[in-house]
């Protein structure tokens, strides 16, 4: 056991002496590994970044909110089974809240009606088109986690009275009023005047597709007064315990069937959507991207590994006589095998460290230059890339090291 330890120390000493003695060659070989490690770790940070981005976006939907809608998220093939469903009515939310109040220990907290449409919003000369306009009740405040950068949400009285007030998304407010305060300003939404009473703080976009900051929130009664709700609404239901989503969902299904007066055995004529189901749809896509990315970057690491294998073969060839001498002095096969494996692993580890450093720098640079790109450097990445480096060294060094350990000492000693 001790002997192995001494042999290992000796092997590391030789490996580093060897690398020092052949600086240029070692640097060039390590370069292959460096490029491979940089590619793989960058891809790793990108994948993590995408993952965080996905999760952030999903969190915007709320992990404690169920969406009662006509259609399921993610599209369906048998669309004709859904098209004839009755639309969701804002009044259904009142009925749901009534049922929730009467249910002891209900897993549902509150049902909030939400009607939506696209509108243009104007203030003086400034205009923003395609603003996502929401008509809802004061309970909407209980659904969203976002803070207000200015002002507040309308209260129950304002909502019930259908007062012409509105809350703007951050980007809308900024486009209309730049650095000035938006509070008490009048804006024209879909051609009707509204007084701004609040601005929601910046939230970002959902998967880069849909901006949560490009919206305007109005009292439902005001929304109804000016805009059609014939297309139907949706009802968002906040649940009390996010660890019991399935149970809450079941309770909500029952409540909704009562609201709709559906007969037993009849299929639900509505859908309950939630963030988790969305995630289930996105995950395979995410994994596909990750696999393809890692495979492509893995190829560059593979090229680096071939470089290591090549250089180890050269090293064995050059030092054939030395191997013979060592064997004559009592080196076992294992000793020679370890010596060359450690040499290969050492180069890979050096390459790995340098590559990791480069990745770290690149991630910092990208993060500083493009804050919108979600890149993330993690400690686990350090361990993974070290493990990958070591593994690369072992795999690529094995064939030449094995060959060296099997050399016939007499033949090796004769080698010129």
């Amino acid at each position: 056991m001790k002997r192995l330890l001494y042999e290992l120390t000796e092997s590391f000493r030789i490996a580093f002496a060897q690398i020092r003695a052949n600086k240029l060659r070692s640097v060039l070989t390590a370069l292959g590994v460096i490029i491979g490690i940089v590619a793989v770790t960058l891809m790793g940070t990108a994948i993590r970044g995408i993952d965080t981005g996905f999760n952030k976006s999903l969190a915007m939907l709320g992990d404690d909110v169920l969406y009662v809608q006509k259609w399921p998220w993610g599209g369906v093939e048998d669309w004709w089974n859904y098209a004839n469903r009755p639309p969701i009515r804002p009044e259904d939310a009142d009925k749901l809240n009534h049922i929730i109040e009467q249910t002891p220990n209900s897993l549902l907290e509150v049902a909030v009606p939400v009607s939506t449409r696209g509108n243009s919003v104007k203030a003086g000369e400034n205009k923003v088109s395609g603003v996502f306009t929401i008509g809802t009740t004061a309970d909407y405040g209980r659904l969203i986690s976002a803070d207000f950068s200015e002002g507040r949400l309308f209260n129950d009285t304002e909502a019930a009275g259908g007062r012409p007030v509105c809350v703007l998304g951050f980007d809308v407010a900024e486009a209309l009023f730049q650095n000035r305060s938006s509070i008490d300003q009048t804006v024209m939404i879909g051609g009707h005047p509204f007084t701004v009473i609040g601005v929601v703080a910046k939230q970002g976009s959902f998967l880069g597709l849909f901006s949560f900051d490009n919206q305007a929130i109005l009292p439902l009664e005001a929304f109804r007064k000016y805009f059609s709700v014939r297309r139907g609404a949706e009802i968002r239901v906040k649940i009390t315990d996010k660890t019991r989503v399935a149970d809450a969902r079941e309770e909500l299904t029952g409540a909704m069937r009562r609201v709709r007066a559906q007969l037993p055995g009849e299929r639900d004529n509505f859908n309950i959507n939630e963030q988790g189901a969305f995630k289930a749809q996105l995950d395979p896509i995410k994994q596909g991207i990750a696999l393809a990315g890692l495979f492509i970057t893995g190829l560059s690491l593979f090229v680096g590994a071939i470089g290591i294998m090549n250089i180890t073969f050269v090293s064995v060839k050059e030092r054939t006589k030395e191997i013979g001498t060592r064997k004559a002095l009592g080196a076992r096969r294992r000793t020679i095998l370890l010596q060359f494996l450690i040499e290969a692993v050492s180069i890979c580890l050096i390459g790995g460290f340098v590559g990791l450093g480069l990745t770290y720098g690149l991630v910092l640079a990208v993060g500083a230059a493009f804050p919108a790109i979600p890149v993330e450097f993690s400690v686990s990445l350090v361990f993974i890339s070290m493990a990958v480096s070591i593994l690369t060294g072992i795999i690529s060094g094995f064939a030449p090291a094995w060959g060296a350990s099997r050399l016939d000492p007499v033949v090796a000693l004769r080698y010129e």
Partner: protein
Amino acid sequence: MIPSQVPAAGRLTRPAGPLVIDIAGVTKLYEMGEETIHALRGVSVQIHRNEYLAIMGPSGSGKSTLMNMLGCLDTPTAGRYEFNGKSVASMIDDELADIRNREIGFVFQTFNLLPRSTALANVELPLIYAGYAPAERRARAIHALENVGLGSRLHHKPNELSGGQRQRVAIARALVNSPSIILADEPTGNLDSKTGVEIMALFEQLYEQGNTLIVVTHEEDIARHARRIVRLRDGLIESDGSVY
């Protein structure tokens, strides 16, 4: 039998100790494509502890082949080989490596030092393979180097040493693990005659200290230092006798 030269008067000859090497009817064949080369055709020899033996013969007579066999670097094609009473023919690779490490000290014509290691590190090498701790390794290696007169050259690399000094480092390396025998294949072959004489004087000293030496050479002057000469010709022992 070729008459041996009369040695210098008053030379010490130590009494032979127990049997170390016992080979009988050893042959070695090399297959070279169609051709089979008989490097050894049936060699029998017994070597005891405390002997100083020279192996002589013309080029190609099989001296190095026999030496590699004796040194457990190679195994015979046929025949019996017992080292310290144990049959070597049946040993696996690692067992042979251990015998080479503990029982045999090699001295090569081309020195075979590790070029980037110091004299001290070169001499420590067999001790690493033997599993000695660093402190003891160092102490033993320094002692061995002092014994060959290189106490002041511990940290020199081979390219900072003369040929004779390099061979002394190699001899220190061969001695450091206190082997049963020291095998030297043409140890003076790469040295000028004056340095060669110095190396042979060192061998004489080692012999008197109680080491067992086998030296391969084709120079009569060198062989005359030994107490016994085995002469090979075409893979066979031509003569085997004492030097008076």
